[in-house]
């Protein structure tokens, strides 16, 4: 039975369980609802959940685990000798899977009988030719080991599907029966449903966490691989970045880290003053009408795709800076520069700073403003001496969040700052960042075993750790700040 059909059946059983449960609750109550612990609907739900939830859960786990089990047992059937030089076990397994698929299609197209597909022998018939007839092209002749493995792969799949259908249906029916059987007037269906809802919520939050953990683990795995081939000292302390796919690369992270920090610093030195001052103006001086127009307008900046900012940097800001500042001052003649990317990125993160700061400044109690004004302070004295100090931790949090946004930015850097890894103090020179190099190391013809490719994961993990640390610090500051007002 196919998975969607099975799912449909389980859900139908759940629905039936709902109505049956409700009816049974009404009948055990003898027509008087006050005899029941819960409303009839809760009894219905308790049965529906019991009938469908465990069955679906088992189905999901089965689908996840089955390929692993089958792969392992089939892979064990292939002897080392069957793996030719220059090939790997993984490649052979990929072949086996293609053959199995081909056999399936052949059966579906009527070129083979189901029995024939299971019994066909490589030596006796031209498997490659017969599969080609039904449109499955194989790269090489089918060896008898591969064919036998494919056949056992198919039978494993079939057995697995049958087993899954049986187990899932049994669970659904069993749940339905048990759910109905336990309905008595005193059964606390409402509490049971409550518990089930809570479980569901926990499950969802677990998925988010598990995904994060999965991402980190895959990065860690590849990074460990990388450090197996490239010394970590050279990576973390190397000041040269020159990947070379023929080997002998220098993969020092420092030039990239420098570029990342330089661009982010310029971006922040644009975004923090502009964002903060506009937040102060909006929250402390602007009238409600002005605020209603300007605040959303600033937030629009955050919605512009970064590639559009990148284009703006490439065709407008870059040439402008080059022609009017860099060349006259003799600081270089590069159209792409750290300054270009930093300025444009700064504009992009203005709304992060201004919007969050605005919220934080607004959260400072009015009573503090009144207290300061009543002592004869002016508006700006009040802002400088009372409001900003009170809001400072929150503002620092906002700035750190903006910083992690700047550090992770890629598009603006590619188009604005270029792709040359360089450690220079001149802001009008092209430099590049870690994110850009991650992309460039992973695009094109790549060999996932070479350190030149794997270094992307080490860069990614380093970046992840940096932004994570920034976020943790930001959250910690914001939380400390929250405790200040009751």
């Amino acid at each position, binding site marked *: 039975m196919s998975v969607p059909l099975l799912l449909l059946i389980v859900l139908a059983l759940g629905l039936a369980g709902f109505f049956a449960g409700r009816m049974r609750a009404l009948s055990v109550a003898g027509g008087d609802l006050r005899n029941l612990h819960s409303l009839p609907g809760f009894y219905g739900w308790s049965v529906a959940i019991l009938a469908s939830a465990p069955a679906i859960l088992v189905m999901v786990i089965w689908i996840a685990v089955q390929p692993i089990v089958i792969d392992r047992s089939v892979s064990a059937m292939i002897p080392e000798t069957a793996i030719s030089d220059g090939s790997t076990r993984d490649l052979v397994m990929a072949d086996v899977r293609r053959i199995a698929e081909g056999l399936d299609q052949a059966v579906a197209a009527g070129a083979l009988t189901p029995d024939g597909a299971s019994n066909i022998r490589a030596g006796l018939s031209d498997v490659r030719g017969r599969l080609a007839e039904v449109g499955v092209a194989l790269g090489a002749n089918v060896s008898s080991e591969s064919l036998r493995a494919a056949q056992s792969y198919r039978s494993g799949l079939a057995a697995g599907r049958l087993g899954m259908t049986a187990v899932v249906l049994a669970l659904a029916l069993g749940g339905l029966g048990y759910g109905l059987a336990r309905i008595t007037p005193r059964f606390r269906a409402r509490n049971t449903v409550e518990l089930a809802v809570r479980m569901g919520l926990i499950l969802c939050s677990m998925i988010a966490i598990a995904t994060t953990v999965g991402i980190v683990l895959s990065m860690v795995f590849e990074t460990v691989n990388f450090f197996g081939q490239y010394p970590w000292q050279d990576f973390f302390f190397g000041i040269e970045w020159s990947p070379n796919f023929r080997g002998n690369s220098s993969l020092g992270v420092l030039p990239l880290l420098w570029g990342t920090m330089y661009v982010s610093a310029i971006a922040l030195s644009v975004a923090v003053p502009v964002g903060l001052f506009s937040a102060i103006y909006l929250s402390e001086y602007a009238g409600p009408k002005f605020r209603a127009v300007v605040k959303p307008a600033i937030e629009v900046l955050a919605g512009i795709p970064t590639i559009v900012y990148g284009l703006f940097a490439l065709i407008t800001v870059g040439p402008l800076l080059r022609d009017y500042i860099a060349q006259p001052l003799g600081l270089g003649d590069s159209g792409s520069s750290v300054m270009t990317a930093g300025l444009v990125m700064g504009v992009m993160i203005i709304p992060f700073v201004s919007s969050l700061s605005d919220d934080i400044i607004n959260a400072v109690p009015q*009573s503090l403003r009144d*207290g300061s004004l009543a*002592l*004869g302070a002016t508006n700006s004295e009040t802002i400088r*001496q*009372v409001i900003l100090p009170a809001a400072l931790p929150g503002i620092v949090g906002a700035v750190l969040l903006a910083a992690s946004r700047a550090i992770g930015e890629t598009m603006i850097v590619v188009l604005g700052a270029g792709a040359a890894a360089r450690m220079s103090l001149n802001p009008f020179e092209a430099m590049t960042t870690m994110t850009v190099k991650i992309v460039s190391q992973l695009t094109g013809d790549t060999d996932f075993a070479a350190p030149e490719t794997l270094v992307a994961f080490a860069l990614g993990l380093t970046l992840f750790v940096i932004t994570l640390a920034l976020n943790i610090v930001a959250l910690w500051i914001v939380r400390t700040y929250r405790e200040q007002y009751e």
Partner: protein
Amino acid sequence: MNDMRLMERSAMTNDVKISASQVQVFYGESHAIKDVNVDILDKTVTAFIGPSGCGKSTFLRCLNRMNDTIDICRVEGRITLDGEDIYDREVDPVQLRARVGMVFQKPNPFPKSIYDNVAYGPKIHGQVRSRDELDEVVEKSLRRAALWDEVKDRLSAPGTGLSGGQQQRLCIARAVATSPEVLLMDEPCSALDPIATAQVEELIDELREQFSVVIVTHSMQQAARVSQRTAFFHLGNLVEYGETGQIFTNPGDPRTESYITGRIG
């Protein structure tokens, strides 16, 4: 309440500190204060009483122009401080507020150290020339607010960490530190427990020696305990104003009498 004692009370002086005539206050369209005329005396505690929403706070905030900070609020009429019109265009509200201090209903210490809270006013007004002088002002103000002994060992601790009653006394010290001539207090004890209330009331009585104090309160006992003069507001009108003893024992207006005896609230 001991009526004989109330009758004996009288204002210390008869100098008029603040004089208000024909004051009207509007919040947008709504007319919150109507035709109020009142003379507030120097070195006297004046209590504003009345049912809530009758405009006590609104009128109090006219006296240091805090209503200027509310966009929709409009004040008409004439209010003078030492004979000088405080709504005159020449008068800087910021300067005025240094002369007319204010303590709010809820203690609102700044999230700064106790020392910095008190030093805030003198610093922004440039009233002190040296650190020593500032130390002196801070100590004097805290002493005057009867808080010095409790905080002298932790002046650098945050003011927000004090108890409610201590915070309110800190706010009083903060207001006193700019050496104002008038101290406005808007229900300064409503967020305090009885013990802290008693401390603050005692303090108010001492402050009278130096300042003219105006206190809004909804507790008639408190008005009777701390004030020499009482003004009764009702629906935006000043119904009756006179010696506290007089108002409480022999009110001239039936509305005052109903309020004092608890029939309007």
